[in-house]
Structure formats: C-alpha cells, structure tokens
C-alpha cells in the first residue's frame, strides 16, 4: 500500500524537495531555532496535512509557527499537545507525555484521520528529547518511534521530522544516542544558532542539499 509520489517542497529554507518517506532527525541546542526550522519542514502545502506532536508548545503556538513558515499552514495541521488545552477541532491534548502507549495510539489515529482527507502528510515530533526525559526507559522511545512514527512513513505518502534538543538532560550520552538515531533516519539536519536572528544548518541525506547553509530565523 506504500505509494510513490512527488517530493515535498520546503518553505523558507534553501533545501530542495524532500523525498516521500524521508525521515529527518533535527538536532540543535537552541529551542527557538529548532522550532523555527521544524515548522518550515513540517508546514503543509495545499493538498497536504501536518500532524504534529508538541511536547513543549501549545496548539496555537504551533499553528502560528506553521503559519509563519507557510501561508495558512496552521489551518492544515492536526496537533496533539502536552501543553495547554486542546482548543479547536484540530488541536487535542494529552495529560501525560510519559504515557507513550496513549500518545502513540492518539498520534497514529491523527495520521490515519488526516489521510482520509488527503493522502499526503508531514508528521513531526517537537521535542522528542522531552519524551525521552519523561519516560521510565529510553528503549520505550525507540519502540514508540518504530511503532507509531517510522511505520506511518513507510506505509504512507509523507515525510517525518523528529526534533531533539541536545542540551536536554536525558540521563544518557546524548552524542552516542543521536549518532545511533542518525543511522536509522534517512536525513539529519543540525541547527546551530550563530546570531540574534541567524543560524547555520548542517544538512546530510537530502539529495542535492547536503552541506552547510546559513539561514535567517
């Protein structure tokens, strides 16, 4: 049932089209810079839907950020948030981000529901590092990514972005963990904030876009 399709264009970033099925590991130490790049990657174009699991931002905040990245993208997003109330028909909330069984089922349901209106989707987790810090056993995060995130990309017509704040206290060797995760994802983007409104992206695994580029936040 896996579909082949055109790539996904990226708004406001010097990155070419991202191939269908691509999983992107997005890393950095500045949460605002990460959020800005995350939103540009996951903002849905027309005939697409975004499905975002937000651990550190409310639904409206994510919608605004998506709108900043692409016109009206916030209205094409389904958001599951652990921050703030689930206001609006496209924003639902979860009480406990550490309850990955519940989070996984709700996230998969959102992806399935979004595919009923349009097959093409961009899924994202902002921030996976928060989930890793909340769970009892880090292996559960890997099981969650396998069961409820990477599986959807393999079967459907979409791309996915997992953001990790490297500065978070994850009670593990973060560099070792990220280097392991990197080999499981098809692409990696590292964000380094270089100025008040500037950042440098180190990109690998996205055909035609690999290398280092400077961007405005």
């Amino acid at each position: 049932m896996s579909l082949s399709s055109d790539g996904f264009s990226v708004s406001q970033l010097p990155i070419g089209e991202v191939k269908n099925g691509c999983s992107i590991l997005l890393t950095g130490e500045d949460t605002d810079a990460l959020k800005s790049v995350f939103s540009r990657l996951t903002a849905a174009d027309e005939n697409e839907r975004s499905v975002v699991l937000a651990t550190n931002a409310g639904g409206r905040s994510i919608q605004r950020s998506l709108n900043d990245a692409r016109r009206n993208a916030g209205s094409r997003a389904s958001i599951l948030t652990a921050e703030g109330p689930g206001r609006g028909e496209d924003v639902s909330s979860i009480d406990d981000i550490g309850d990955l069984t519940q989070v996984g089922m709700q996230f998969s349901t959102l992806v399935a529901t979004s595919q009923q209106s349009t097959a093409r989707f961009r899924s994202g987790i902002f921030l996976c590092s928060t989930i890793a810090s909340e769970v009892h056993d880090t292996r559960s995060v890997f099981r969650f990514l396998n069961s409820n995130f990477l599986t959807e990309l393999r079967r459907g017509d979409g791309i996915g972005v997992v953001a990790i704040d490297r500065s978070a206290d994850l009670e593990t060797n973060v560099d070792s963990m990220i280097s392991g995760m990197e080999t499981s994802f098809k692409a990696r983007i590292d964000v380094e904030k270089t100025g008040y409104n500037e950042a440098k992206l180190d990109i690998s695994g996205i055909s035609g876009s690999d290398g280092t580029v400077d961007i405005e936040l």
Partner: protein
Amino acid sequence: MSRTVLCVNTEERISEVSDAINAEENLSPIETTSVNEAVETINDDSQSIVGVVTSYELSDGSGMDVIQAVRERIPQTPVVLFTDVSPAEIDTASFEELLVEYLNRDLPDADDRLGFIMNDIIDHSAQVSFLAPDNEDERLEALAEYDIDELPIEESFQRITDLIAAHFDIAVAFVGLIEKDEENFLACTGADWDSLTREDTMCTHSMLQEDVMVVEDIANDKRFNKNEQLENLGIVSYAGANMTSSDGHVIGQVCALDHEARSYSIEEKHQLEQYADTVMEILELRQSVLEGRRPEVAQ
C-alpha cells in the same frame, strides 16, 4: 512458510478477526477468547507466535493485559490493538510504555487492512525497542554471506577473547554477531552465553556508532539502566567495537565488559578496534578458504 498469529477477542467476534487473518495466504490464526487463555498460549513456546491481534474489551480483563504478557514473554513480537473503542477511552495508566499498533475497527476497510498491517509489522520488526540502521536489509544480507556454522573459527575467536579479557583486565570479553532478532555469541571469555534477544543487548546500540561505544557505568545511562537482563548478567561497564565487513556493513561487535565501572582511554579504544579488525580478518580469510575448496558447479 506460514506465520502464526494469536487472535484474542470475545466469543461473539473472534471468528471475524480470525477470518481476516486467514484471508492472508501466509498468516495462520490461533483463536483465544480470554486474557487467561491468551497468556497461556503466549507462554507456550511450541506455538511460535510471530504476531498478536487483540481486542480491548475481554471477559476477564483487557487487551492491555494481553499486550503486557507479550512484552514480558516475547517482547519483540508485534501487536495490533484492533478495537472500536477510541484511544481516549482506553485505560493506559498502568501500561504507559507498552506501545502498540492501534487499528480502529470502525474504519470502513478495517478488516481488509488488518492482514496487510500484520504482515507489514512482522516483516519490518515494527515494534522492537531499538532502532535498526536504515540499511538493515542489506546488512543482514551481508551477514548471511558468511557460512558461520561451517567455518573453523571458534578456537581462534576464543583465543582472542581470552587475550582481550587479559589485556584490559576485565571480567568478560566476547565476539557477537547481530542477527535480525538476537545477538549470537561466537566466543566468550568469562561467561557462558549463547545468545541474547537483540533489544536486551547493548551491541545493537553500539553497532550504530562509527567509533567505539563506551558506557562507563550502566547505572548512569537511561538506555540501559532499566534493562533487567543486563542487571542479571552483572554488567556494569561496556566497550564495543564494530566488526565491519569488506563492503562496509557492521555485522557484529567485539566487546569488553566488566562487573565494575571503568573508563577506556583513546589508546584502549583503538586497541579494541584492532581486535575487532583482527576478528574480521580471520572471518574473511576462513570464508575465502572455504569458498576456494568448494567444487565448481558444472555449467
């Protein structure tokens, strides 16, 4: 080869689920209608269950009890929760890190999708608690190129693990190959291990790292400090170097373990890599000799 799938549902609905599984040529259902019956089947090794589909509401408990039994007994086995109860109504408070594929039975094509999903999650080991490299299929093919059972490598590798243990003054050294679902130990000094379920191993994390992975004290690393298997084996510190095939695939690990916390200098990490390279050289040479001895097939 037929794949055995455990189906758990109420007496009224079990046949519908069983029929949906049976509709797939390579799937073979086993029917159970209660948590107790399901748990007995899960604990029965002779059944060789490779997938589970359960409803949420059962006469003597819930589908979450079934999933918990799967995670405890056959943790890498994928499970589908097939129910018309919405996620928000499912009580997961006591089952926060079980993880499962949720398939809403109210979807118009749910029965048709069930068989496809079951095959997909079995094919891709889709619910394991470790991340596999993106090129896992090619890696496993590279590993299968070696006729491990036919190669006289055991004594050579045993000598090397003896040397590693003595050189680093550690409790355990081993050479392990990382298969799809488990790590098989070809030689081991200081312990008597045959194999470990892959998600219980540290090597499945180490193999994803280009350089030597060192964990000085497992108690301080959340990836490993809740792993009962490691605790039972008494492992406290770990260093693992990649066994890399000539075509660049990591097929196994050469490891140094100790029952005490310890660090490794840059020089010591390099030495462990050299041991791993030596192991690979022996493996490649033995394989070449074996292939050279095989009679050519007449054209």
